């Protein structure tokens, strides 16, 4: 069987090589070829042997880490829908419903994003990079379930073209592409990503069939408006309205364990991000008058909205985050702090995590520059000493 696949590849290869009938699809063929089998390339440099980890493995580790919130999101989509419309569904019905609703989002995201990636790789004659395997999976997870597919397609295209390709592709981007997709929707179609009705499947179009008194508001909106938000425990478990993948802190923590254990994400960023949010939250709790939003217990911010998902999957994106180890502490802390500041003081938009991360993505090189300075200064001092 194994040799059969390799033989099939060998048989198809000439057709897709330069001069072959489909030579213009060379990069695309290569992408599938290296996907199927690690190529027979050997080392050329001085280091004669290499570790068996490659970028495909790194990316697949992130996908595995994304599975718990994804699976939970599937169930929760069904759960919220059945709550809103008063349906008495069993567990598997909810999961099936979620799968049925989320699948188109995933397909659109991958088809649009990978389509552009393959085309660009083909035009430039590059190998196709694996980065979008992760971005394409995360983009639907940070969207509301009711997002129209054409908006999702536009956002994905925007993120890939302006978030990645114009900078030179995977590894060169300044901002996290998935967050950029969300930011695009937020600024271009604000009505589609705010409000109370978008978080639950079918609510936008079938408001008349709702259970009496059902609002659909996210905990974030409830808390900000001074209403009764779900309990900490419920938000921690995640059976609440929200973007598809962001609601369950417990599922996200499972993913965090995978990311930290495999070393793909920096635990320093995650820990300092929580510390930053806790710091501002505690400060606000201490200074605020009782009853105001600022007095809302700080720990709830860690389980509401996109905080946990952002801290674990978005802030830790190695390309757009701070690259130095000390820098990671600063970068993470400021994201957490900024997120809670935005939530408390930005009345127009209650979710601070997206903007906090994008802003700190922009600032990350500056942080790294400051971290590099001491090392450079030690070196300059040695040079002065050498001259004497």
């Amino acid at each position, binding site marked *: 069987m*194994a*040799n059969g696949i*390799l033989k099939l590849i060998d048989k198809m290869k000439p057709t897709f090589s330069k001069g072959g009938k489909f030579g213009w699809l060379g990069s695309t063929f290569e992408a599938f070829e290296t996907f*199927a*089998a*690690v*190529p*027979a*390339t*050997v*080392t*050329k*440099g*001085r*280091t*004669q*042997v*290499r*570790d*068996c*980890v*490659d*970028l*495909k*493995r*790194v990316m*697949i*580790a992130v996908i595995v880490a994304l599975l718990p919130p994804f699976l939970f999101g599937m169930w929760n989509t069904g759960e919220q829908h059945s709550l809103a419309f008063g349906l008495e569904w069993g567990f598997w019905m909810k999961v099936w419903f979620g799968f049925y609703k989320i699948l188109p989002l995933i397909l659109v995201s991958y088809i649009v994003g990978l389509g552009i990636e393959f085309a660009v790789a083909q035009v430039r004659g590059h*190998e196709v*990079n*694996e980065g979008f395997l992760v971005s394409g999976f995360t983009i639907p997870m940070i969207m509301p379930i009711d997002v129209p597919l054409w908006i999702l397609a536009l956002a994905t295209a925007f993120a890939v073209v302006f978030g990645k390709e114009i900078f*030179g*592709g*995977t*590894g*060169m981007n300044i901002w996290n592409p998935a967050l950029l997709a969300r930011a695009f929707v937020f600024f271009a179609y604000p009505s589609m990503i705010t409000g109370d009705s978008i978080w639950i499947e079918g609510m936008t179009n079938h408001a008349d069939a709702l259970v009496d008194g059902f609002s659909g508001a996210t905990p974030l909106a409830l808390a900000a408006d001074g209403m009764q938000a779900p309990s900490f425990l419920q938000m921690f478990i995640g059976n609440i309205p929200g973007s598809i993948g962001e609601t369950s802190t417990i599922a996200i923590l499972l993913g965090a364990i995978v990311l930290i*254990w*495999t*070393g*793909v994400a*920096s635990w320093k960023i995650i820990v300092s991000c929580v510390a930053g949010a806790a710091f501002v939250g505690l400060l606000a709790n201490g200074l605020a008058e009782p009853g105001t939003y600022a007095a809302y217990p700080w720990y709830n911010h860690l389980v509401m909205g996109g905080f946990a998902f952002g801290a674990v999957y978005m802030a830790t994106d*190695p*390309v757009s*985050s701070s*690259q*130095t*180890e000390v820098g*990671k502490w600063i970068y993470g802390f400021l994201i957490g702090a900024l997120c809670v500041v935005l939530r408390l003081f930005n009345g127009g938009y209650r979710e601070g995590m997206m903007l906090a991360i994008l802003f700190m993505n922009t600032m990350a090189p500056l942080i*790294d520059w400051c971290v*590099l300075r001491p*090392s*450079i200064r*030690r*070196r*300059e*001092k*040695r*040079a*002065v000493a*050498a001259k004497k």
Partner: protein
Amino acid sequence: MEQIRLHKGLDILVKGEAKKVVCKTLVPKVVAVRPSDFKNVVPKLLVREGDTVKAGQPVFGDKARPQITFASPVSGTVKAVVRGEKRKLLAVEIASDGKNESVQFEPVSTSAGKDEIAAKLLASGLWASIIQRPYGIIANPADTPKAIVISAFNSAPLAADISLTVKDEVENIQAAVDALAKFTSGKVYVNISAGDENSPLANLKGVVITKFKGPHPAGNVGIQIAHLCPIGKGDVVWTVKPQDLVVIGRLLKKGVYDPSRIVAVAGSRVKNPAYVKCVPGASVKELTDGFDIKAQKEIYDQECGVRYISGNILSGENVGENGYLGYYDDTLSIITEGNYRELFGWAKIIRSKKFSLSKSYFSWLMPKKKYNVDTNLNGGVRPFVVTGLYEKVLPMDIYPVYLLKAIITEDIEKMEQLGIYEVVGEDLALCEYVCPSKVNVQEIIEQGISLMLKEMA
């Protein structure tokens, strides 16, 4: 005795370590002196085909610094001058007459000054054994180094055990160290492995002995310099390998050029890896004669070739089966050429035949397991993505990715700021090994060094 503990680094456990016996003494038929062994040297040929040469007689010199020459390791006749494209000199092949007759030099008395010693080393071609940092090029005889640093152990996988290869040569090493000490304004540092208290070099006199503890690259002299006497702009530190000290010692004491040394023939493709006594420039064919190179079809049922590496598997040179042992090398590594394909290799949950530092594979479950390594790249080349990984295997005050990016963009000022003077390729070999983006780290570093040499000249 001070001990320096290094926490960063990585020991890759590889099958095929040489058994600690010298299994044969090679009397070579043909040897080669290759300009490519010597960084930044443009050769000027000093012999012609058919000339008879003695051991210690220069065969070519450095165009830029004519006083630096490179000698024949044996006596015999010049068999061939091998040239490549644009008549580039690739090697001078010498057919040995088996007599090992050396040019006779006057022995140098222990009270000799440094000028006399330098003249002797230059005349015999042994000056090439003295490497300077920055850049890792042959030292300039006019410099006064701020220190001389000698690493008395190899930490790279499969590399020769120096405690074995020089154990009967302590007197010669002492003579060489005494002579070299006259060149420096500072100290001579000799660094031994903390695990090897009985190192024959531990009892050298007139030197500072330091113990280094930790995983590879603790044995790399560049790493040791960074912890003992870090190099600033304008500093010069000299380094010599122990086996070259032996040769220098023989010259100074007896007036003969005798470059014979003990070399490890190791690697997972050798059935009976062991040590061989030979000379630098010995041919791979003769070196491996008598060793059993395993035919290997074990990897996924695909026939794989053999790679012959002069040096260790992390920073050696692929010389091929018709190649020659490099001037500075004390190891010949023989491993599998990894030109096979592995179906869904990256997607396997467990990939038991391969080692990875990444915990996404499960080699961490078997920390003592030794692996059959091969030269497969294990993936495609990508831009830098993962961060913080290089730092885990580089025990230096350097931000490797930033340095590499400065080199790629040819930003000389940044390269200086980020430490180009402190590194050579081999110090970052492990960075290249662990890189999931398969970046050619050593090549980039060497490009940076070439650029510095060009700009600073």
